[in-house]
């Protein structure tokens, strides 16, 4: 208990430092940091419909982050996450464009296909690692390019819109293939349920199952796993398959929840963004939950910057990058702990 409380204190202090740096940099740009954050908060949470837009972004980012927690636990750098998201979206689109596309079961079949497509794409990376000794960063990067290529081919080739071949995307899906929503504001209930299930399930799996512990051990020291009667290769493969499956789900959410069609940049760069999120959170699920929401709010709220303050949308990229870099630097410097101890000692 005490230990956790201390960790929380350290994190809050680190958050304070990090935000201070962001404020400082925003001031350097000649803008008021308070106004910027006010716009972001207004733009992302200011109304019910804005909140829903934030949730739709939070969905895939959360899923990709959870996916990465599995591979990071096994000590693997799953750069191929983007490709896995893309292939998930391809799987979902395949169903949305099929004869099932206008039936109510379409989203559910899409989920299965998205999981399958993403999972297989992740598994390729794992197999190359385990069987071919190819570093996962290189194979992941390669497979990202291949997945992008496949999507573009599909959009201007077999899945092109009637009469025109453009990279603006496929035809909009039939409404039955969209992620089911409820109410007038189209609250994406299925998506939220999926995310919450994933968070809870992953928490339990990583903390309370021998699978989770063995995954973590694989990441720490592959050489010692045999002594504890399990094979690190199996666990690396499983981690890639699980990560790919969950990333595929993120692709489904992008295709059927956000765009309602397949577009070339279907992953939205959320895979790479999630790598940063998981790094900041050091694989902690609670933190991932919060930080991924924070980043989603930044992305959605960022559109307000131009309208309200006349600032370019790219400022969001600067805020994100500053946040990640300063956080990681503070984490390495470990200034917070001695500082806290000093404060507490002087109180006594």
């Amino acid at each position, binding site marked *: 208990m005490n230990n956790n409380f201390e960790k929380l204190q350290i994190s809050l202090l680190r958050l304070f430092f990090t935000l201070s740096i962001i404020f400082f940099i925003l001031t350097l740009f000649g803008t008021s940091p308070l106004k910027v954050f006010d716009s972001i908060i207004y733009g992302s949470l200011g109304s019910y419909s804005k909140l829903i837009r934030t949730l739709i972004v939070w969905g895939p980012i959360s899923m990709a982050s959870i996916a990465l927690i599995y591979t990071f636990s096994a000590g693997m750098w799953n750069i191929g996450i983007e490709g896995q998201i893309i292939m998930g979206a391809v799987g979902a689109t395949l169903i949305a464009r099929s004869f099932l596309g206008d039936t109510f079961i379409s989203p559910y079949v899409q989920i299965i296909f998205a999981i399958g497509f993403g999972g297989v794409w992740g598994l390729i990376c794992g197999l190359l690692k385990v069987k071919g000794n190819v570093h996962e960063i290189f194979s992941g990067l390669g497979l990202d390019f291949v997945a992008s290529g496949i999507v573009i081919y599909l959009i201007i080739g077999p899945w092109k819109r009637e009469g025109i071949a453009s990279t603006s995307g496929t035809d909009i899906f039939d409404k039955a293939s969209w992620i089911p929503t409820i109410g007038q504001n189209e609250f994406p209930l299925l998506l939220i349920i999926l995310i919450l299930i994933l968070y809870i399930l992953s928490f339990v799996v990583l903390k309370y*199952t021998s699978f989770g512990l063995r995954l973590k051990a694989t990441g720490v020291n592959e050489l010692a796993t045999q002594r*504890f*009667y399990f094979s690190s290769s199996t666990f690396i493969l499983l981690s890639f398959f699980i990560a790919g499956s969950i990333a595929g789900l993120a692709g489904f959410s992008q295709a059927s929840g956000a765009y309602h069609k397949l577009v070339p940049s279907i992953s939205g760069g959320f895979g790479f963004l999630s790598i940063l999120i998981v790094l900041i959170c050091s694989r902690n699920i609670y933190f991932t939950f919060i930080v991924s929401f924070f980043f989603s709010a930044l992305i959605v709220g960022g559109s307000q910057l131009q309208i309200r303050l006349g600032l370019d949308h790219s400022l969001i990229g600067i805020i994100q990058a500053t946040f990640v870099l300063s956080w990681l630097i503070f984490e390495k410097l470990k200034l917070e702990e001695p500082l806290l101890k000093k404060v507490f000692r002087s109180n006594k």
Partner: protein
Amino acid sequence: MKIEIKNISKTFGDLIANSEISISINNGIHALLGENGAGKSTLVKIISGQIAPDQGEILIDDKSLLLGSPKQSIESGIGLLNQDPLDFGNLSVLETFLVGIKDQNPFRKLNKTKQSISDLFKKYKIKIDFSERTNNFSIGERQQIELLRLLYNGAKLIVLDEPTSAFSLEQKKMMFNTLRSLSNEGIIIIFVSHKLDEIMELCDSGTILKSGKVVHSITKPFNSKEIIGKMFENTDSLVKNDKDFSSSEYFNISVSNNDLLEKEKKYLEIKFPYGSVIGIAGLQGSSNDLYIKNFFTKDLSETKITLDSNNKISKKSFYYMPADRVERGLFRDLNVLEHFGLYKASESKILNWGKIKDIASKKISEFNIKAKFSNEVSELSGGNQQRLMLSLMPEVKSILLLEQPTRGLDLNSAQNIWETILSRKSKDIAIIFSSTDIDEIWDYSDIILSVSGRFIVNIDYKKNLTKEKIINYVSGIV
């Protein structure tokens, strides 16, 4: 050239590594002998400038050498040839020479430099293609290239720190020839080894170290009995393996032909009673650890353990404990409790942390591990890491495979650990351990398997052996 080492002392914390060592060498090949921990490596590091001694001095041709500076040592003509070749694997031989060259601007007169390097190779009759990558050569060839590189840069005194541990017989012969011709040219060679046969073959004089002190100086002709007597301490240990255990059940060790020395090739299968303690003796750098590992992984050789009843031994009957605790044995960033969790993970899919905590606290007190649940393994001392590994031994009848179970531990911890291990004697199928310490082998084993280089030289009950015999076996004097 002449080197005088005067009163060198060095301590690390409580450990006295070198204590008032004085050696003077004028010429020839000088052996530095001693068992593990005798202080040889520390002395080598002091001579080559890698560490500074607490006191003492080194005179090169009556001039005092600035200690603790590798640059000074090199400039004074001291060259160190490491146990493993310290070269740049993906550079070509020529590039390796150029990287550390003493010449100014070697690239400006590259042809001339090339010529003088190739002259040097010719002189020592070493045929090597300069443009080939260093990686493509065998360890022995790389060591020879290193040796010539040292010479090229003006080394007049060359220290070889157990250079032959990875050599084939032929490579060793070549190396020894080179060394001898160097010595004839007046270059002093300090040869660090504990392989008696090599020293008898190669060296002219020698110094024996024990517990950091010079105990004896020797000159040719050598008396191997005398050397052995001085090198190995005769300390009696407190814990004895005296429980004479006889069981009616038997297991076999079947030794593959490939693991036996050529002259006595025969497929060996020997029966031993359950509960036997088998010590695999071998010098540092020999394959004794690999044999332990092989019983578990079965990927290095055909030598294996079988049960008399022809039952297959399940993987979980083996408990393998590697010598490098943190590199291969434990998970450095996992905490103590998580290790017990991992142990339980092979039994059930869901982890009941409450139950694991109960087991862990029981084991922690039983094995006297000084650690909290939340301590990461990297924070524990070597002894505690070792006890943690021991505490994870299965409760059921097992075959314990222990690689140097007391490596790097002080006497107390070591005794403690032996007490624990021997208390399992009546329960286990077999306890197999490796050690480079002949006394440890002698004190705790029922059966002794002697390994020299990568070959098994002898397997026998302790009662048929003597300590001297074992020392001869492992030193390669059969």
